[in-house]
């Protein structure tokens, strides 16, 4: 016989959990008590539960493993919610464990009681309310299996206090058997043949790699297909890292904030091959105008994505690594020379433009990214927050491998960057982890600097300060005739002293001439460092595809 909380720890150990991001509380007392004795599991105390969920997310994306976060009942659990939704939208495998009031108290509005399984129903892949300590091992096993198989996603396990305190037999369960959950792995042969036929016939094929490419870790298969069949590759924001930015076939990010060349290629192609993407509205612009000359092949592990947002000519359900393998085996070598020349011309025509400086010393965000790129090596990880800085980073930052560009794509969660970097740094202690953030997002994610300080994590934070909520301000430029409502900070904290308060090296740059040298010092610093770069508020992200427009109808190319 064993205590429920001990069975829980034992079960986590069986799933090779080495790190838990958590925050304790009354209903989770027994669990944290049991964790105290688990020397092989590192419990990282965060400063806010939302940070725990984001850190688990960053950990999962950097390591390719399941991230685990833990919180108490009530407010602890609800604070996880934004983080769970963030992981759900980006299909990131995390397991969230919450304490719950005792089973006898459930439903009585007890202190710190909240129906967290009810609340999270629409934003988890699956959730559990544990009724018996004897079920814990099976549930943990199922939860980890569900979180990381098929289309990955978050799973929540809510465990009442009395269940963690009850004694039970630790019954081993050998295999997960869920009759309602059988992900399709292998692509259907008839559709495989149809796709091959389309690729062979196409004169202007284009691959679009989405977040599914990163979860399937099928970079090699993608590269082989692109090179062998002469197909250019664009990526979504979540698909960043599935092909090197420097690859001659790479077009960069497409979408309403995508690179002009990528968008023009979409509108010109005659075959659009979607790999592990969901045709989100930030990718397609007006769906009716999307890729007007193209047949569309949609390959995804989630059948529910196919036909959800976009017309599809050939659907193909399966695991990308397997399906691309199946396709590569049958694909003939092809050059598509005239199309590739056309692509090269498109790329040359649409070079990124920089803001025109009003004063010589004024810094454009493009300067910041360019300078940071010089310091990046292939193993560096870059997380971002959400806003204009995120788009600039997604367009231009040189991270070339899967799991190295970590950003909240689907939900667009401000305050994600710093905690996600905490998770990524814990997963990859030997990598340099950078955060690109803005003055708005920084103030949302700031509490986790305390975690970084305590854990000795040498995060490198680039704080791009334009004294506004830039992205919303830009939307107000486009849609509200430039009436800025609640987007300008008339006062901000002294970021220099804030950085010092968290024990970080603090650098501040306001002149372009000083940027290179300060960046060098920043990149070379061994501990945590925060570099505030002051930029003018007037710089906007371009090109942009406004509401109702097609991808070729960009503003500001």
């Amino acid at each position: 016989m064993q205590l429920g909380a001990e069975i829980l720890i034992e079960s986590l150990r069986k799933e090779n959990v080495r790190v838990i991001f958590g925050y304790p509380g009354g209903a989770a007392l027994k669990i944290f008590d049991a964790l105290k004795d688990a020397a092989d599991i590192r419990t990282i105390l965060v400063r806010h539960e939302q940070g725990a969920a984001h850190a688990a997310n960053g950990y999962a994306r950097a390591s390719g493993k399941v991230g685990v976060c833990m919180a108490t009942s009530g407010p602890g659990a609800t604070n996880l919610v934004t983080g769970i939704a963030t992981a759900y939208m980006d299909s990131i495998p995390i397991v969230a464990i919450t304490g719950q009031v005792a089973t006898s108290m459930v439903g009585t509005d007890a202190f710190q009681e909240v129906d967290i399984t009810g609340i999270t129903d629409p934003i988890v892949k699956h959730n559990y309310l544990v009724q018996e300590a004897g079920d814990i091992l099976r549930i943990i096993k199922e939860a980890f299996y569900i979180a990381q198989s098929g289309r990955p996603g978050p799973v929540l396990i809510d465990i009442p206090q009395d269940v963690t305190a009850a004694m039970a037999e630790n019954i081993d369960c050998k295999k997960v058997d869920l009759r309602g959950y059988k992900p399709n792995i292998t692509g259907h042969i008839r559709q495989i043949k149809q796709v091959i036929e389309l690729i062979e016939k196409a004169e202007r094929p284009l691959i679009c790699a989405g977040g599914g490419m990163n979860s399937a870790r099928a970079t090699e298969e993608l590269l082989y297909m692109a090179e062998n069949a002469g197909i250019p590759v664009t990526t979504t924001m979540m698909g960043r890292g599935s092909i090197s930015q420097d690859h001659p076939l790479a077009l960069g990010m497409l979408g309403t904030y995508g690179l002009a060349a990528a968008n023009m290629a979409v509108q010109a192609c005659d075959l659009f091959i979607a790999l592990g993407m969901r045709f989100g509205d930030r990718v397609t612009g007006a769906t009716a105008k999307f890729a007007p000359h193209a047949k569309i092949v949609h390959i995804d592990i989630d059948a529910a994505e196919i036909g959800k947002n976009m017309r599809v000519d050939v659907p193909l359900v399966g695991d990308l690594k397997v399906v691309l393998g199946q396709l590569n085996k049958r694909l003939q070598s092809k050059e598509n020379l005239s199309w590739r020349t056309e692509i090269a011309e498109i790329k040359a025509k649409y070079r990124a433009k920089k803001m025109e400086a009003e004063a010589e010393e004024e810094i454009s965000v493009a300067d910041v990214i360019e300078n940071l790129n010089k310091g990046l090596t292939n193993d560096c990880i870059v997380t971002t927050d959400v806003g204009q800085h995120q788009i600039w980073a997604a367009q231009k930052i040189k991270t070339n491998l899967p799991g190295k560009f970590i950003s909240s794509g689907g939900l667009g969660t401000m305050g994600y960057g710093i905690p996600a970097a905490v998770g990524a740094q814990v997963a990859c202690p030997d990598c340099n982890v950078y955060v690109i953030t803005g003055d708005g997002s920084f103030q949302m994610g700031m509490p986790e600097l305390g975690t970084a300080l305590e854990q000795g994590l040498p995060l490198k934070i680039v704080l791009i300060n334009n004294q506004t909520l830039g992205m919303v301000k830009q939307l107000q430029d486009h849609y509200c005739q430039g009436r800025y409502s609640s987007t300008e900070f008339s006062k901000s904290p002294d970021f220099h002293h804030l950085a010092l308060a968290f024990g970080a090296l603090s650098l501040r740059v306001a002149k372009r001439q000083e940027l290179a040298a300060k960046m060098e010092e920043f990149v070379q610093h061994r501990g945590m460092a925060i570099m505030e770069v002051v930029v003018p508020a007037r710089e906007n992200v371009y090109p942009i595809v406004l509401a109702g427009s097609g991808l070729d109808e960009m503003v500001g190319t």
Partner: protein
Amino acid sequence: MRCWGGGKVKHTLAVLVENRPGVLSHVAGLFSRRGYNIESLAVGETDDPSVSRITLVVEGDAKIIEQVSKQLNKQVEVIKVNDITEEETVDRQLLLLKVNADIAVRQEIMQIVEIFRCRIVDIGRRSLIVEATGDDAKIQAIIKSLQSFGIMELVRTGRVSIVRGQK
């Protein structure tokens, strides 16, 4: 496959699910999120007590119903989803209806009950309770026939449907 088009149609979905708490609200939630009203719902254990069958009727755009069916299929506790709208089915619902029945009209009501082959299951001093099973059309017809006597209370189950065997 072009998944566009289609107007509003009444769809009957047969959903096999794990017989566990919370599953029904999960299934219903997927429809309510889209602003779709479930018109009829029947849940019960199947021959396998660990499996329940939900039969639900919902009106909506064909494309969206297909999407919701796929979303349903994704749920871990959902074992199978069948859209049986186009199938040859036997449909039944149960009606219990308490109707005003003074001595003067009692005979007439009993004749109607006879014609529709339903049953009287309770006799009160001024009322009768009529039990009827049948498809939607029959149930509607019975209600209409008894309306003029004054219906005191009416309760009906959701529709259950089963696909006919091969002929």
